[in-house]
């Protein structure tokens, strides 16, 4: 079985993100980048699936030179192979262009049974790429997965539990499939020192658009339909009222204030 895990590099969620607002670009100096936290669960799920069924794992990312960091981390954790799509032309890709590029790369990797993605990235927050990717590839679309029950590569079947509004849906899908996983599906492991040392030595080649057979007019800002035309900070929220007095008094005041809102039925 061949598994592709899609990984994105995002700004550290613990750090304050700084924007150059007039330019609409990220101030990257001094800002740490990390593997998208949701993708860590996809990566771990790939490793667990490999331990259970025997599989080959390919980690895939797209982005500038620095994006190799997330692939090195994946290598340290034990993936078998990594692919980095790196081409100046892909900068500014929206979800449509991103799903096109990832789809082309996955076709180039070839013979893929299962594509694992995180539920969404913590920077763009769209959560749309996995569905668009499944549709483009003609793979089964299995999103919001909280448990992979079974993967039967021989019979081209996968059984998963999806966390949807109000409950859990158990779905059987045909392979190949794109599966997006929820946080909590597993507990991602940390790389060990030996893994990190080994990963540091691996040469990671980059694929450009030609290498994956992607048309230049379908990638990057040019190939994107959506465009962010403005970026602002939300209106500041100022501190309200600090309640005073003993606990009884504060609690009583607070209950009155909340009842006044006429929200509690």
């Amino acid at each position, binding site marked *: 079985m061949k598994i592709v895990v899609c990984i994105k590099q995002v700004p550290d969620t613990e750090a304050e993100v700084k924007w150059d607002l007039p330019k609409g670009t990220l101030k990257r100096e001094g800002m740490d980048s990390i593997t998208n936290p949701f993708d860590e669960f996809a990566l771990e799920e790939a490793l667990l699936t490999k331990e259970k069924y025997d599989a080959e794992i390919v980690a895939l990312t797209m982005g500038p030179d620095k994006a190799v960091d997330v692939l090195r981390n994946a290598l340290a954790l034990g993936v078998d192979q990594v692919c980095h799509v790196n081409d100046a032309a892909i900068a500014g890709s929206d*979800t449509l262009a991103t799903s096109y590029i990832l789809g082309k790369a996955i076709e180039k990797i070839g013979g893929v049974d299962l594509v694992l993605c995180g539920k969404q990235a913590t920077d763009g927050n769209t959560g749309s790429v996995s*569905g668009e990717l499944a549709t483009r590839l003609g793979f089964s679309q299995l999103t919001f997965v909280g448990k992979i029950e079974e993967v039967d590569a021989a019979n081209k079947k996968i059984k998963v539990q999806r966390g949807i509004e109000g*409950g859990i849906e158990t779905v059987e899908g045909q392979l190949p499939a794109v599966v997006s996983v929820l946080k909590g599906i597993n507990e991602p492991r940390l790389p060990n020192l030996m893994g990190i040392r080994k990963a540091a030595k691996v040469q990671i080649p980059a694929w450009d658009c030609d290498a994956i057979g992607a048309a230049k007019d379908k990638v990057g800002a040019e190939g994107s339909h959506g465009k*962010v035309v403005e970026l602002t900070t939300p209106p500041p929220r*100022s501190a309200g009222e600090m309640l005073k007095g003993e606990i009884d008094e504060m*609690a009583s005041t607070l209950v009155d204030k909340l009842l006044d809102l006429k929200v509690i039925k």
Partner: protein
Amino acid sequence: MADEYKDVWVYIEHKDGVTTPMSYELLGAGKTLADALGSKVCAFVIGENTDEIAKTAGHYGASTVYAIDGASFKTFRPAAFAKAAATLVNKFKPDILLCRSTTQGQDLSSALAGQLEVGLGSDAINLQIDDASKAVKLTRAAFGGNFLATYMNTKSKPQMATVRPKVFPMPQLDTSKNAEVVKESFSIAEDDIRTKILQFAQSETSVNLVEADIIVSGGRGVGGSEGFSVVKALADALGGAMGASRAAVDSGWIPYEHQVGQTGKTVKPKIYIACGISGAIQHLAGMRTSDCIVAINKDAEAPIFKIASFGVVGDYKQVVPKLIEIFKQKAGK
């Protein structure tokens, strides 16, 4: 762009044929956009038997309802529904197409956008028509909620977007209003759908944070899973849902489905009560747009107080039971 594309379409989601009033909520936002463009708000629905849903969509203001019926469409499955929706879109060419950003709305819109090869704006918290281009300007949160991005698609149609639930007012229900219903036929082979629903298990502790009006959350300060029984008691007393910070979820005190924040859910309840939550950026990103924020924390310096509408400096273990007691007295419960 050819102006053969017209009208605002709203997807009516259902679960095995059953809708809730929320299924129709986007007819409100859709109407506002349609009015600004001088066009109509329409609904589209795909299911096994859509007659009742189509009728109700009319009562909620849809002027035309486009429907596809078939046994394959009993339960939502992305490939089946997206292919059916694509047939409708290709034939009737809507200008704007909106889905709710629920799991079903996200699944359908991403599959449909991939199929039609058009852009997709996600999780809108504001929608407006740009005067000059007559295109939709969509505002959404990026980086959790630390930034607001305004998105436009002037390259392709329909302009597709998912919309965050409960941000726009519900349309009025008026049973004297009826829609014209246009039924299209479309069928798809089971093999092309690729997925089969085996079972649906309703969750006992069904958490629907995104749709809750009142949320009571606990953080690191509640100290352990026992602490969440205190948090839950307040949520239950107020008729609200229970949330949690990442610190509490990562400590294993409460399942992930309760997590609010950048790596959890983004919520906008009318009342958000934070117990023992210090207010890390990660958490604030997910709840800062709540109407009223109450912070209860021992540490008077906790950053959460900087955005709280009401702050109580004190131990939640003492404050929360007191709140429940006084609330029950005052509300006569």
